[in-house]
C-alpha cells in the first residue's frame, strides 16, 4: 500500500480569534476523488485553500506527495518555509476557483502558458503545444486566442482547468467550480472534471452539486462548523448518514 497523496493531520486554522478549522484529519489516496460537502461557512473552502497555502494554518500538518506543505519543524519549533519553497510546492497543486480568475489581459493560451514558461522554465513552443492539447481536452481548441471577456463562464472555467493542468500537478483542488455558472454551463465544466477523475487524477472537490458528487466521488467528506463530521462512500453518506447533522443537511438538499 503506497502512502496517501494528501495527508492532513490535526489541522487547526484561526481567523483572528475565531477558529474556523478544528483538528482536521483527512487522507486522500493517489487517484482518489474526494468531495467536500457542507453548509456555507463550514470551512470547506478554507480547508482547500490551506492545502496550497493561500491560507496559513496555526497547527497540524499537510503533506502532499511526501512533502510537508508550508512549514518545517526545526529543533522542535514550527517555522514557515521560505517563500520560494512555498512557490515551488504550489506548482504540484493545481487549483480551480469559483470565479475562474483568468488573467484578463491574456488570451486563453496566454493564461495557460504563463506559469509553465515562467515558473517551470518550459520552452515556449513546447508550452504552446501542451496548451493546445489541454485546450482540445477541455473542448476549446478553437478559442486559444480569445480573451476571457469573450468567453462564457463555462468556457472561462474550462480554460482555468486547462491552465491548472498545464503545470502537470499531482493534485487538483476545485473550489466550488460551478457555483458561479449558469445552469447550462454547469454540465460542460462537470464533464471535464469527470473526465479528469476517470484519468486517475487525485482530486479534492468542494461543491454543491450533489448528484455530481455522488457520481464522481470515491468518498464524501461532510463538514460543519469547521469540523469533519462524517467521511464515507457517497451512497452511505447521502442515503444513510450516521450523524444527525449530516442527515439534517441532506434531507434539506436532496
Amino acid at each position, binding site marked *: 500500500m503506497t502512502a496517501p497523496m494528501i495527508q492532513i493531520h490535526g489541522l487547526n486554522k484561526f481567523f483572528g480569534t475565531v477558529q474556523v478549522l478544528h483538528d482536521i484529519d483527512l487522507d486522500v489516496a493517489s487517484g482518489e476523488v474526494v468531495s467536500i460537502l457542507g453548509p456555507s461557512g463550514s470551512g470547506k473552502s478554507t480547508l482547500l485553500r490551506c492545502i*496550497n497555502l*493561500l491560507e496559513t494554518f496555526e497547527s497540524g500538518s499537510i503533506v502532499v506527495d511526501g512533502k510537508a506543505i508550508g512549514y518545517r519543524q526545526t529543533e522542535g519549533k514550527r517555522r514557515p518555509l521560505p*517563500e*520560494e519553497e512555498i*512557490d*515551488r510546492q*504550489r*506548482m504540484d*497543486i*493545481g*487549483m480551480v*476557483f469559483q*470565479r*475562474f*480568475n*483568468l*488573467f*484578463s*489581459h*491574456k*488570451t486563453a*493560451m*496566454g493564461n495557460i502558458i*504563463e*506559469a509553465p514558461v*515562467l*515558473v*517551470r522554465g518550459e520552452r515556449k*513552443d513546447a508550452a*504552446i503545444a501542451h*496548451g493546445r492539447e489541454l485546450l482540445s481536452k477541455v473542448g476549446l481548441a478553437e478559442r*486559444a*486566442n*480569445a*480573451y476571457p471577456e*469573450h468567453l462564457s463562464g463555462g468556457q472561462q472555467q474550462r480554460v*482555468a482547468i486547462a*491552465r*491548472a493542468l498545464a*503545470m502537470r500537478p499531482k493534485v487538483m483542488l476545485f473550489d466550488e467550480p460551478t457555483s458561479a455558472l449558469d445552469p447550462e454551463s454547469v454540465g460542460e465544466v462537470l464533464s471535464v472534471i469527470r473526465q479528469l477523475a476517470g484519468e486517475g487524477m487525485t482530486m479534492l472537490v468542494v461543491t454543491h452539486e450533489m448528484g455530481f458528487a455522488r457520481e464522481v466521488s470515491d468518498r464524501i467528506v461532510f463538514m460543519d462548523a469547521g469540523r469533519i463530521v462524517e467521511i464515507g462512500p457517497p451512497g452511505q453518506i447521502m442515503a444513510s448518514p450516521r450523524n444527525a447533522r449530516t442527515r439534517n443537511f441532506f434531507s434539506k438538499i436532496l
Partner: protein
Amino acid sequence: MLSTGQKSHLFVALCVAGVAAVFYIFATASFSWNEIPKYLFAPQIIAGARVTLVLTVLSMAIGIVIGVIFAMMRVSALRVPQVVAAGYIWLFRGIPLLVQIIFWFNLALFMPRIGFGAYSVSTNEVMGSFTAALIALSLNEGAYMAEIVRGGILAIDRGQVEAARALGLSRGRTFRRIVLPQALRMVIPATGNQLIGMLKATSLVSVIGVHDLLTQAQFIYTANYLIMELLIVAAIWYLALTALASLLQHFLEKWASHRPSDRHVVSGKAQVPSGSEQLV
C-alpha cells in the same frame, strides 16, 4: 410654451449670437492682429515650444516611473515603504508647484555644495534652471501618478493574484506580469489628463527663467510691448500642443480598450503586448 424643437433653435441662435459678440469685442479691441502671424513661427517661439515639449515629456516620463515605484510601496504589505510613500505623496502633492519650482532653483542658498565628503559639486553648477524645473515638475507629477497608479493596482481583482500565486508565480512576478500591466492599462485615461495638465503647468517655470514657451513670449514682449499679441501666440502654441496630446490620449485609450485579438500563438511566435513596456 416653446416646443423642444423651438427650444433647440433658440439655443443655437443664442450660441451664435454669443460667439459673434465675443468676436466683435476682440476684433474691435486694439490688438495688432497682423503682428501675430509674424511671431507665431519666430525662432525664439519655436525654441520655446521645443523646451516646453521636452520638459513636459521628460517630467511625465520620470513622474510615471516615480509614480509606479511609490504606488508599489504604498500598496506593499510592509509598514516602512508604506509610510515613506504616504509621506512623499503628502509632501509633494501638498506644496504648490510654484513653491516647489522656486525651492529647487534656490537650493544653492542653503546647500552650496552637493555631495559626500571629498566628492562634491557646486549646487549652482548642477542646479541650472532647467534641472530645477525638471526636478520640481517630476517630483510633483510623481506624487499624483503614485495615487493614480495605486488606484489602478487596487482595481485589479484579487482573484487573479491568488490564481497566479496558486500556479507558483512569486509575489514579484505576480505583480510584474499580472497586476502591473493591467493597472497601467487602466490608468491611461487619467495619465492623459495629467499629460495635458503638465503641458500647461510647465509655463510656471517661466518664473525661474527656463527658456520655455511663455518665457520666450515674455522676452519678446518686454522689448516691444506687444503683450497681448505674444500671449495669444503662446496660447495658440499651448492649444496646438494640448490638441496633439489629446489626440495621443485618444489613440492610447483606443489601443488599450481594443485588444489585439487573435495575435497570440497562431504563428507560434507573436506575443501579446504587455502594457507596461509601452507606457513606461
